[in-house]
């Protein structure tokens, strides 16, 4: 009860702007995963959508997440990783439904991670994910070759209808052809929206953020230059790296990109992390929010790894899903929201 009181007092005292986030709530931990799938060390990289029409005013929130399945090996230096789907009605913890993609005998023999979700319809979603393969066991005749990072995978989630109080969904196998195959290096955290007839994908490639657009989901060109370069902000919150972008559209000519920023010391240790916002009308020219970063670990905010920003109510409320490492070294998923966050009215990232 005390916690509830503190939360209400704190959030009520906050102004109604993206930077005014309340007390974080833990929403998913490795121990919550169905049948204990994964190796119990991490959940992260959330991709979130709301299925508005299916809930009778209490729509399910769908969350794709990554988890590690096995530890690092010679074949897979980052370990093997898969993607699961969790959901919730109302507030509180997410309920896991188990894995939807696990490493397979294809271009993602090691890793399927960093999911991003974009609505195609009122009942169908396209999900992209970062892929990694073992170059020593790859198919050398495949068009994407034997690079460890062969590009971005795709699969589909579709609502099937309901039986009583149960909502049924289908998730497809992974499309056989990755996209963005020319990137072929350690890029990640794709974030995709649909606006003005095209898919737009932002992704991190150390130390900057790139953006590419295409009317077809599988025909992106690899950009030659970053769209957002780290080390530009006067406040220096993204001095050494911009990463984990969240691309949002308010209209088909009014866009926001939320991104993580990092500062490293001379040994490569992260000494500060933040989340900032950039605005654009053309997806080419971006202006940093005049108020600087919205959250920053040096200000006592969480470490904010793998952050995904979600808006609600026509961009009046905001929810930031992110991963934080607990005292036992386990990565858990958290959510912090602004006062006007409305989980029943999450914005669809299609404009139109």
């Amino acid at each position: 009860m005390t916690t509830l009181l503190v939360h209400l007092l704190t959030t009520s005292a906050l102004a109604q702007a993206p930077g005014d986030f309340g007390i974080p709530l833990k929403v998913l931990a490795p121990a919550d995963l169905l049948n204990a799938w994964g190796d119990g060390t991490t959940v992260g990289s959330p991709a979130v959508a709301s299925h508005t029409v299916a809930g009778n005013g209490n729509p399910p929130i769908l969350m794709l997440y990554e988890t590690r399945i096995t530890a690092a090996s010679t074949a897979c230096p980052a370990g093997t990783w898969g993607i699961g789907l969790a959901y919730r009605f109302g507030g509180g913890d997410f309920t896991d439904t188990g894995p939807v993609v696990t490493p397979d005998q294809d271009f993602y023999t090691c890793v399927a991670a960093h999911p991003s979700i974009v609505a195609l319809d009122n009942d169908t979603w396209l999900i992209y994910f970062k892929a990694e393969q073992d170059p020593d066991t790859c198919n050398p005749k495949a068009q994407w070759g034997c690079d460890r990072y062969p590009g971005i995978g795709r699969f589909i989630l579709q609502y099937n209808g309901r039986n009583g109080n149960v909502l049924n969904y289908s998730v497809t196998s992974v499309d056989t052809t990755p996209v963005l195959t020319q990137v072929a290096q350690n890029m990640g955290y794709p974030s995709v929206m649909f606006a003005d007839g095209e898919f737009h994908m932002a992704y991190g490639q150390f130390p900057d953020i790139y953006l590419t657009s295409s009317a077809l989901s599988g025909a992106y060109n690899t950009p030659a230059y970053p769209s957002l370069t780290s080390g530009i902000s006067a406040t220096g919150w993204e001095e050494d790296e911009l990463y984990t972008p969240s691309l949002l559209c308010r209209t088909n000519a009014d866009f926001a990109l939320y991104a993580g920023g990092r500062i490293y010391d001379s040994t490569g240790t992260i000494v500060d992390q933040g989340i900032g916002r950039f605005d654009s009308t053309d997806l080419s020219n971006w202006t940093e929010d005049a108020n600087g970063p919205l959250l920053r670990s040096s200000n006592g905010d969480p470490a904010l790894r793998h952050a995904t920003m979600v808006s609600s109510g026509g961009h009046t409320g905001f929810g930031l899903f992110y991963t934080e490492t607990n005292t036992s070294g386990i990565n858990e998923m958290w959510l912090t929201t602004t006062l006007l966050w409305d989980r029943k009215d999450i914005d669809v990232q299609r404009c139109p």
Partner: protein
Amino acid sequence: MIWLALILACAGPTDQEAPTSAAPPGATAPDVTVPPAGTDPTGGSEPVPGVDPTELQVQRVQGSGALKVALVGFAVACEADDAWMAVEYVGSPTDVSITPYIDGVPSTAIRMAPGADGVIRTTEHTAEVAGCEQATWLLELADSHRTRCAVQGPDAEALLSQHPDCQLR
């Protein structure tokens, strides 16, 4: 306790997060009567009054052939009067067609061949379309369950008014 009650009553109009797994104030679902089990015939396009879902189940399927038809991507490019069209979709449509409109007048619909099997199926077609650069395009996909369509081009909003269920691209 009175203060707490006042705070709860003034917690705000939106459905915010609460720091416990319990539903937040004002979010308690009314008592409902769950109808007999059966697949929702609307396929999810409409809510079912009086029923609050409480559970979600996911099944894995191979490819997208068993899915309801849905449009993924749609592109048209013109070179003089030659039109190149590409459509990405999921499901098993019985018909994929594109109709060019010039000055609001439809030309003959162009039937697209089925895309290669896969999850996201892509079909491409090249055709001569007089006035290609000025054309507005109506894409229609249909299976036995439903139709999906999209419009794009300079008069897309006008065409959308005649096909209000279509996506604007």
